[in-house]
């Protein structure tokens, strides 16, 4: 069997990443499922206005998947963002811990499972991760996000400004 070693490209990636990662997922064409990527798009625009983008990487995808564990490497804090049918309106914020769950065996993973994979692969505790779940109601293909969902998104973006400020403060503190 050919041994596995971390590639040069992977090592480089781990040493050059921004300290903060905002990762949203969902499908822009499935109604309120667009909330995750829309959040990323709008927060990125906000950060560009304030010249904060050097400190933050913004990523989005259709769903969380196993290789996204590599995107956690080298981060100080991670914010996961997804639309949710189960959370209270307008949004819920949860500090996450690594956890093995049923999502390991599917094409889509939970952020807790992703953190567990990071731990098992790197032998390290993953960076502090927070889940921002934004309340959605309908997820039909070809439908735009609903008015309620967009209001929830606006509220979540207001909360994110506080998260950013707290992150800046954390980075500014010595040691």
């Amino acid at each position: 069997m050919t041994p596995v070693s971390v590639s040069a490209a992977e090592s480089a990636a781990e040493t050059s990443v921004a300290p903060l990662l905002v990762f949203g997922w969902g499908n822009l064409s499935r109604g309120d499922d667009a909330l995750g990527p829309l959040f990323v798009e709008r927060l990125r625009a906000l950060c560009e206005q304030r010249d904060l983008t050097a400190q933050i990487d913004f990523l989005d995808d259709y769903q969380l998947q196993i290789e996204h564990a590599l995107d956690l490497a080298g981060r100080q804090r991670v914010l996961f963002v997804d639309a949710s049918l189960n959370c209270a309106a307008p949004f819920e914020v949860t500090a996450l811990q690594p956890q093995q769950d049923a999502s390991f065996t599917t094409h889509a993973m939970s952020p807790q499972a992703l953190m567990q994979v990071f731990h098992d692969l790197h032998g390290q505790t993953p960076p502090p991760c927070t889940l921002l779940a934004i309340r959605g109601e309908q997820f039909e293909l070809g439908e735009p996000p609903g008015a309620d969902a967009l209001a929830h998104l606006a509220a979540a973006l207001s909360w994110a400004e506080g998260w950013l400020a707290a992150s800046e403060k954390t980075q500014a503190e010595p040691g």
Partner: protein
Amino acid sequence: MTFALETAAHPEGLRRVAIDPVSRVEGHGKVTLLLDADNRIEQVRLHIVEFRGFEKFIEGRPYWEVPVMVQRLCGICPVSHHLAAAKAFDRVLLGDAPITASAEIVRRLMHYGQMLQSHALHFFHLSSPDLLFGFDSDVARRNIVGVAQAHPEIAKKGILLRKFGQEIIRITSGKRVHGTGAVPAGINKLVTPEERDALKRELPQMLAWAQDSVDIAKQLHAQNPALYNQFGTFRSNMLSLVRADGAMDFYDGVLRARDADGKILFDGVSDQSYLTLIEEEVRSWSYMKFPHLRSLGREQGWYRVGPLARVQNCDFIPTPRAEIERQAFMAWGQGGLVHATLAYHWARMIELLHSVEVIAELLDNPALVSGDMMTTGVRQRSGVGIIEAPRGTLIHDYDVADDDLVTRCNLIVSTTHNNQAMNEAVRAVARDYLDGRELTEGLLNHIEVAIRAYDPCLSCATHALGQMPLDVALVGPDGALIDRVLRSPQGELLHDLNAPVGLPA
């Protein structure tokens, strides 16, 4: 006439077992079993709710939007839809004229990167837990974390192979997701020399791991030939694209089909003529259509697509390492076609190896980094684009009006082609493993293993079945509920006659 075990002669009074997982993106699949009082299998059906509103989602849009929009049909293989749509609109804009050499090279690189990342995900992360630990092993261990803990090198290879494929997609399509690289009549970006060189540096490692992957799959067959040859095995026709000279080709080619003995049924048929070959049948109990070859009819004309079909439908694989592996695979069939459901995994890893070899060739092609990106031709009213997606043959078919709006759209996705085959696989497993026995989680997982071998778009849902809610109802001949067993997502069994009917969404 129906297929064996498709419809019970007297369904009244039989016990119904529903395996009913749900999925957010890829559709909804469930298996129902009807058992008599002695647990004998009377009826087995795999029902699939496909993507909703495919055609309505696309019709009325300008054609140039469609290759980007169709990526949102499926979060699992968006690149396949992107390229199939682009190929169809090539036909609309160019007629028979080819796209430029650079456009074809860049698109091919994107597509083989997609094949690599998709096959790596399926084998290493969705199927290896079953294959390494056993189909009825401890469900708490039968997942990728179990693999990461017991075989960390295997888990990491899977991740890094997939990451390499996705980096190729990012470079060729412009973005990690929602790429725009392929456009009707060409592409909108070349690969830079720096991007090419970065990918080339990774190639030796990826090639070695791809070879390892084939070896793992081959060893699994060699170690337990009785299981791997017989599990969910049935004979079928095979359909795929092949290159005009009979070589394996995932991006373009002509349609070829073989019968179950390996005899060519048709060959060299233009992809534009697919409707002369394939007919889709609707059955009342499933939302997914059942395609079959018109020439053979519904009962004899159904077929398989995907890795098992492609590896055996072609005359050769045009890269050296994968061709050696194809020959070993064919030798396993001892002169006939290999029909084993689990052989999909072995064939899939041969394709993974081939993909890496093709990527190496494409990265050495100067047209990748220089040359014309777009071309022109004679406008047509319609076009068909067919590619071999990771799960099998993917067909996009469009009509475009003079105002550039799409007026008709027909898509046949890979999982649809394999609908009858997956039902046959489930019935074979039910006959061999479940018939007359008490149902356990491990036994039900055997059914999922058979479905998962096809890597259908619903496999994300079905794979989690061991930990998904399960609702088993025992109904008496008079329709009265005699017993009800529910399994929670945590695996706890609860007998509750008063539980609400239906599973949580």
